[in-house]
């Protein structure tokens, strides 16, 4: 009787629970109309003479123009970095280097709100996320690595760690500022200088950071920022005077980079794609698990390399988990990233929107069953409602390939062995999640996952002290923690 009654009542949170808009103000934001390249401590006009628009993906309005660096521009940046390395940065004691990095951390904290708002404007992510996660974590990352600068001998006993030289760094558009912090902070702490190319759709926080470096008094040329598309990145990769490449992005581009540096002695760190399994065991705390699944795939519009994009539910709890999941999805607010009520913001670019739509189409064509909650999407801008697919197989395209959007593929399993083999059956190995109230089961599963970051009863957690990076085709090297220093050092034991 009670069961029947429960079935009749359907939650309709979206129609009854409209929140009044709660908009973050943009009045205090200072953006120039046009941004030049940051080379040798100054903003300089690009030799290419070319600028491109950077837009707000939630409104399609142009925010600013950004310079596109060509080969000559990149060469100037590498020369500036080399000069700074030879004349200043490599001569500085670790203690003094550290103090500059502490300054950077403090200045980011002071200007956190400005960076947060620009991050949301330029990239489409919700203000709640950029305010509470991206920018604070970026500052924390600089703060953490600042302290390592004069303690490297303790991190690598009997190894005599030394800086490498000039690091070329290419960062993605999903966490623009945070990924820049992940790259620059350890590079500077270990005594290297940097040429950085931020992603073309999200260059603004990088350029604001360049202004901040000037304010911090960071010596000229220690960090150089060259904006542009993939072509600009390839000039960095192929420059003979770059000693190390650090890249975060797709596995496809990562492999291209590895091929271009195969006949050189350039060191590399690759943070590439993922297709993580998120596993719900029948003895899991289901409400928390559902919340973890939501956070695992819809956090940052699913533009997360470690997103829990493959959900595995133990058969005995499949029905109840699906009901809870759909109810929870119905309550998600999709819309203006600057509204503090928003859970899912705008898709980062038209190109990515097309990619996600392509995969949704493939999912349907391959016979998967789609579910999307009722939600009204803004007329302008790039949007995808939270989406899940059931009736998929290990061989489905949407189960095999990284979509990088708010799209979840759901499978079931019966035994622990079955889910371990299904979860590991992928060329990727970046992350995984496991939900169970039984400690021995959690540890069994976390230790069996072939992945670099494993969350037990939680998901998508990040911290400067916690190493991040993948197994297999998800890349090599770690960012974060003591282990994150290694990629920027050479050893003369």
């Amino acid at each position, binding site marked *: 009787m009670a069961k029947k009654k429960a079935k009749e009542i359907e939650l309709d949170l979206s129609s009854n629970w409209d929140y009044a808009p709660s908009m973050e103000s943009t009045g205090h934001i200072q953006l120039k109309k046009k941004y030049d390249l940051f080379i040798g401590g100054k903003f300089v006009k690009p030799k290419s003479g070319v600028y491109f628009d950077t837009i707000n993906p939630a409104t399609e309005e142009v925010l600013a123009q950004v310079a596109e660096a060509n080969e000559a521009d990149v060469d100037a940046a590498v020369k500036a970095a080399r000069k700074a390395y030879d004349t200043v940065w490599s001569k500085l004691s670790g203690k003094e280097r550290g103090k500059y990095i502490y300054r950077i951390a403090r200045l980011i904290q002071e200007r956190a709100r400005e960076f947060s708002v620009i991050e949301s404007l330029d990239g489409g992510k919700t203000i709640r996320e950029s305010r509470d996660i991206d920018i604070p974590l970026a500052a924390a990352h600089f703060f953490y690595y600042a302290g390592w600068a004069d303690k490297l001998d303790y991190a690598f006993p009997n190894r005599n760690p030394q800086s490498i030289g000039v690091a070329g760094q290419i960062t993605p558009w999903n966490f623009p500022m945070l990924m820049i912090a992940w790259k620059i902070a350890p590079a500077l702490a270990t005594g290297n200088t940097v040429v950085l190319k931020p992603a073309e759709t999200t260059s603004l926080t990088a350029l604001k950071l360049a202004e901040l470096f000037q304010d911090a008094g960071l010596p000229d040329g220690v960090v150089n920022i060259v904006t542009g598309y993939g072509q600009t990145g390839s000039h960095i990769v192929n420059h003979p005077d770059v000693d190390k490449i650090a890249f975060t992005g797709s596995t496809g581009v990562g492999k291209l980079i590895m091929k271009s540096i195969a006949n050189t002695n350039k060191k590399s760190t690759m943070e590439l794609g993922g297709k993580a399994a998120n596993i719900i065991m029948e003895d899991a705390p289901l409400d928390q698990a559902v919340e973890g699944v939501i956070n695992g795939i819809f956090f940052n519009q699913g533009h997360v390399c470690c997103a829990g994009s493959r959900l595995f539910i133990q058969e005995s709890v499949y029905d109840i988990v699906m009901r809870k999941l759909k109810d929870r999805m119905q309550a998600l607010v999709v819309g203006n990233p600057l509204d503090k009520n928003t859970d899912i913001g705008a898709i980062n670019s038209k190109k990515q929107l097309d990619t996600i739509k392509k995969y949704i189409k493939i999912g349907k064509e391959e016979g998967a069953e789609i579910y999307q909650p009722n939600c009204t999407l803004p007329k302008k801008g790039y949007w995808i409602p939270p989406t899940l697919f059931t009736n998929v197989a290990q061989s489905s395209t949407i189960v095999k390939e990284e979509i990088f959007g708010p799209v979840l593929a759901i499978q079931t399993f019966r035994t622990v062995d079955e889910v371990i083999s299904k979860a590991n059956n992928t060329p990727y190995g970046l992350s995984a999640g496991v939900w169970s109230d039984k400690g021995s089961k959690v540890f069994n599963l976390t230790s069996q996952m072939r992945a670099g970051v494993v969350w037990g009863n939680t998901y998508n957690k990040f911290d400067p002290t916690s190493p991040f990076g993948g197994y*297999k085709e998800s890349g090599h090297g770690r960012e974060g923690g003591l*282990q994150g220093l290694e990629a920027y050092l050479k050893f003369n034991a």
Partner: protein
Amino acid sequence: MKRIEILKTYKIYIGGAFPRTESGRYYQPLANKKPLGNICLSSRKDVRNAVVAARGAQTGWAEKSAYNRSQILYRIAEILEGRRSQFQSELELQGITKVTAEKEIDASIDRLIYYAGWCDKYTQVFGSINPVASSHFNFSTYEPTGVVGIIASEESSLLGLISMIAPVIAGGNTCVVLASESKPLCAVTFSEVLATSDVPGGVVNILTGNTKELLEHFASHMDVNAVVYCRNNKDEINQLRLLAVDNLKRITIKDNVNWDDEKVENPYEILNFMEVKTTWHPIESISAAGSGY
């Protein structure tokens, strides 16, 4: 009448067994202008068979307790010590002096003992508990990369070989080894040591043959996770790096190494073939630390 001597047939070592090469071919490396023996010219198929054996053995090997792996490495050293005279004569046959050969054998045994001792210690020294700002227990530890290809030293046919096999298997990896092409005798005899040392079949697989023919198959095999190259040929290094990209193999280059130098013994050689895994779990209540699960 003088007794007719029994000559040794040198075979390869795959999955704990001693097959002849699938190719049915052989070569004769020379020392002092005399052939050392008829040595198997392993084929691509042998490499593939060896990788299957190594993959099959990997999980079981990694799941053994560190204490057990440590004892097995120690056991290899014990058996090697007991068969020193055979290695002595092979090393001399391959062209080095009696004294140098003795030293190489001593160092090889000691190197095994050194890495035997690390098996149950490197996670303590290099693992970490990370003080994250949220209410989570967070730790990083090392797990084996998986199946490792070893292109062993050309010159140092015993010590160079053992200097790479020992750290690779100490960390729970399994391996497929390409022995020194010009001095393959010790590698084949070492596989007989392995076969009698409690090392499960498939953990170490040793092939002999032509580097030019086989390197690309090590480099391009999609089920090999890492390759360490212990020679000096620039073209081969470039070829290896390029072909390794397709499944992002971890590549380690050990060119111009002096294997006699004790400095080559260090735990970082183990870590080169490991992956860092970081695990998070909430403290106090599940999904602790506020609203963000």
